């Protein structure tokens, strides 16, 4: 049953990811991206990380996709049917992509990935929170400084010019 769900959710994620880059209309590619985010949240649920799944939906679907859509609307030619989707270099790019695919498959199948033994602990969320202010406190604080800098930058850019 889990195998079937994994195949379905991965298919949804991969197909919508492919459609993001091949759709003609920019707005629709943003919506396919939203579907890909939902698929990733499904994969998190299959990995027993339900907090990450819900946080994924809250942050990515609720905020980041809105940001992407606003940025798309500020650009020109959003739904222009005249724009070509592929330019003339698609042959070379396809060749490089095939080389990359062979490389990735070779790496993934030959490396001995270390697997953590045991089940997911029942108080995973508490341990996540404790880790944030324990061993991983420095990345946490650096991320919050980055967010404050982004907020200050946004306020300065969007401020009314007082002349």
């Amino acid at each position, binding site marked *: 049953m889990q195998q079937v769900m994994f195949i379905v959710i991965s298919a949804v994620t991969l197909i919508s990811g492919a459609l993001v880059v091949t759709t003609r*209309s920019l*707005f*629709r590619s943003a*919506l396919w991206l*939203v579907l890909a985010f939902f698929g990733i949240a499904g994969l998190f649920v299959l990995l027993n990380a*339900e*907090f990450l799944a*819900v*946080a994924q*939906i*809250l942050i990515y*679907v*609720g*905020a980041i*996709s*809105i940001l992407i*859509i606003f940025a798309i*609307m500020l650009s020109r030619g959003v*739904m222009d049917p005249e724009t070509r989707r592929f330019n003339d270099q698609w042959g070379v790019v396809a060749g490089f992509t095939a080389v990359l695919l062979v490389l990735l498959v070779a790496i993934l199948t030959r490396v001995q990935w270390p697997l953590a033994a045991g089940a997911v602990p029942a108080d995973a*969320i508490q341990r996540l929170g404790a880790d944030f202010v324990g061993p991983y406190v420095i990345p946490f604080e650096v991320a919050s400084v980055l967010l404050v800098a982004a907020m200050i930058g946004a306020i300065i850019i969007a401020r009314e010019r007082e002349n």
Partner: protein
Amino acid sequence: MDYVLDFFVNLGRSWTTWLGTFLPEWGVTIINYLVGGIILVLMPVIATLTLTWMERKVIGRIQNRLGPNRVGPWGIFQAIADAVKMLIKEDIIPDAADRPVFNLAPILIAGAAALVWAVMPFGKGVIGVDLNVGVLYLVAVGSITTVSVIMAGWGSNNKFALIGAFRGVAQLLSYEVPMILSIATVVLLAGSMSTMRIVEAQQIPFIFVLPVAFIAYFLASAAEVGRAPFDLLEADSEIVAGYFIEYSGLKFGWFYIAEYGNLFAVSAITATLFLGGWRGPFSHQAPVLGPLYFIIKTVLVVFVMMWIRGTWPRFRIDQMLGFAWKVLVPASLANLLWVAIVLKIALPTIVQWALMLGGNLLILVIAAGMLGRAAKRHAEQRNLAPLSSGAA
């Protein structure tokens, strides 16, 4: 008699056992999930049918008139008449509209309104699925509404719809922050994000321990749902139905169902988080009374929201956003900080709760004082008549 005392849970068990006599394991699971799904989808529809009638009666009485009273006794069939009217209207799609996006937006928003009911604790053991991250799931599903608002505004190919959608998204995103902060305060106090455990942790309802969190959550969720006084997006005198201006017939019906389903859902969440959910007199001996208390508390909160709608004037968009960021967010942050500090002090629980209540009242007094002074300054700047001069 014991069967009746815990009726809903026992009914569920008997149903599952009866199904298990002639269906394999996976069949029983699928049928149970289907029944649960149907109940989920029915909740916003039932909410719409009953709450639209209640709203028109309540607001009618506030405005000193009767409200609908012709279609059935006390007008209770008015909602069905409205539903029939909506169903038989012509379905108009604008010529240059983006059809898949246009058609998908009402489905997505109604879906988000239905999904919220999966984690509502109706009674002891009567819940769709007891997620570990119940309240975070509620907020996340609410944020799906934001994407569908933009889809509706964009897909209509209408400048006013797009502006309405932008304003709607600004309001929804701004009010998510105080909502999440006040929910986080309750989660700190209850020690778990699961809605069942939050209800079970309320020996006294949390409204008496954290009034600031209650007020912040109440106002923020009223803004999230788009209720007056935050209904700038859909007020007829403002932007003529905002982002769903181009929708007619059943698609507009889905937006309507989503709005009233969301209203019922946020009232239910308020009742769960702050009023004690399904707890009440004799609810431990007779768990069957749980859903009754839950519905009563939810309807009470709905009534207060309708009362506010009929009484307060509407906010402008800049006043609305300023209120969110300058008043609700600092108050909720201060509340969260104070609760976190108090919980670290090793005192008996009652003393901790009394300290939290004291801190909350202090925050309320400070916030009200600052708002009063800001209002006085604003009135003096604009040379408006001061309130203390009395009737001239």
